[in-house]
């Protein structure tokens, strides 16, 4: 069965020349979009149209386009990664929109994620948090045997649920406080739950929280908006674990 065609869509898109310029919304019309195309493909069509009109195409982040890399972003109609749950923008399809609809597209709005151009934001703040402690130090030795360290299945599963985080930034973008707690909690949890990561758990929790605070992210108020918008459904139970890890580490000092 052929996909339905959306005859006309109105797109309200945030345009900003560079980090220093003042941006604003531009309105574009786009015609004959297949409901089978993804949201990013729709933007590709718009960009081809803009190029043919000798206009600057809309800059947006994308890479794998199969929902696993965490590169795409976009705040669509007031929600991070658009109206669908548990998907990234690249996995959002045009069948979610009605013919004749007006779609508002904004970049992530968060002080720690400054806009570079149009819809692209600088998410290196998350890299800096990871660099502060989101790793396991392996200074020497060969590769250990995969099954040499016994790990209970439920622990491995919990760690894997946290490790599903792709660092897209939707948590901080959607949080009313611009808090990065879900991201930091996922990264702390995935390691704290496993024996390899336990050794540095205290130092890691302190360093990553300190970096998160320093970069100007807000404070978590447990609204749970982050887990609703997280494309990987990372649970805020990990935030409770981060709180535990951090408090334990601080009380030992």
């Amino acid at each position: 069965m052929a996909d339905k065609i959306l005859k006309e869509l109105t797109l309200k898109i945030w345009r900003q020349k560079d980090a220093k310029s003042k941006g604003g919304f531009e309105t574009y019309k786009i015609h004959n979009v297949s409901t089978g195309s993804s949201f990013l493909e729709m933007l590709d069509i718009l960009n081809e149209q803009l190029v043919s009109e000798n206009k600057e195409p809309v800059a947006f982040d994308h890479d794998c386009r199969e929902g696993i890399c965490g590169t795409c972003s976009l705040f669509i109609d007031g929600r991070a990664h658009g109206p669908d749950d548990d998907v990234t923008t690249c996995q959002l399809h045009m069948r979610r929109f009605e013919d004749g609809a007006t779609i508002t597209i904004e970049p992530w709005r968060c002080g720690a994620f400054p806009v570079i151009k149009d819809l692209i934001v600088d998410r290196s703040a998350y890299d800096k948090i990871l660099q502060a402690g989101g790793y396991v130090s392996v200074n020497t030795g060969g590769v250990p045997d995969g099954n040499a360290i016994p790990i209970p299945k439920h622990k491995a599963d919990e760690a894997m649920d946290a490790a599903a985080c792709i660092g897209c930034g939707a948590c901080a973008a959607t949080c009313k406080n611009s808090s990065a707690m879900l991201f930091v909690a996922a990264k702390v949890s995935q390691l704290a739950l496993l024996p390899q990561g336990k050794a540095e758990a205290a130092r890691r929790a302190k360093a990553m929280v300190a970096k998160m605070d320093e970069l100007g992210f807000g404070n978590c108020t447990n609204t749970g908006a982050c887990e609703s918008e997280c494309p990987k459904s990372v649970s805020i139970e990990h935030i409770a674990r981060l709180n535990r890890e951090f408090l334990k580490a601080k009380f030992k000092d």
Partner: protein
Amino acid sequence: MSNFFTSSIGKKFILSLSGLFLIAFLCVHLTMNLLLILDNSGELYNTGAHFMVTNPVIKIIEPVLAIGFILHIVLASILTLQNRSARPIKYALRNQSGNCEWSSRNMYILGAVILIFLVIHLYNFWWNIKFPTLGNTALNTVTVGGVEMEDTYTLVASLFKSSVIYCVLYILGGIFLGLHLTHGFWSAFQSIGFCNQIWRKRLECLAKIFAFIIAIGFCIIPLYFMLGLAGK
């Protein structure tokens, strides 16, 4: 412990503990207040209130309670200000109804409304009991079981019997407090790290029940007087 009180989680830890302390206070406060509607002669309430003001434990707790309130308010204000500045450019379009509860998004506003209520409430009763000569309402003494004590029952009863506006105000206070607690109760446990997948459901359910009991409990007292159930 260095930087504990400047870290986001450290501040939230203190905010949560002060919140839980205030929750404990609410339980005692509501229990005492319910004596108002159990005995229309007011003897039961007066005896209870007299016990509270003369009890040395309460004397020690009173300033601690004030500190609890101040800590809770000051920290919430600091955290809210930081949160506001964390997003210098706001979204043009936001749709949050699908991803979190209204009360969880508006804790500070709910808290501010409760604070306004608290100031009025303190003026109505605490001020008039502590400084009877300065207050507008005369506080008489009454003898219950051979002990002379302040007639606080009449102070409360006359306010609610004489003014529908105050009754409505106190009912609204109870409702806002309940809304604040639906999120605050379980959120406090989450912030101190006492939560996981299983306990979250339990705590959220418990929070709703607790908030309902507190809201209804505080609302029925002015309602009781408003409906004339305490007599004229």
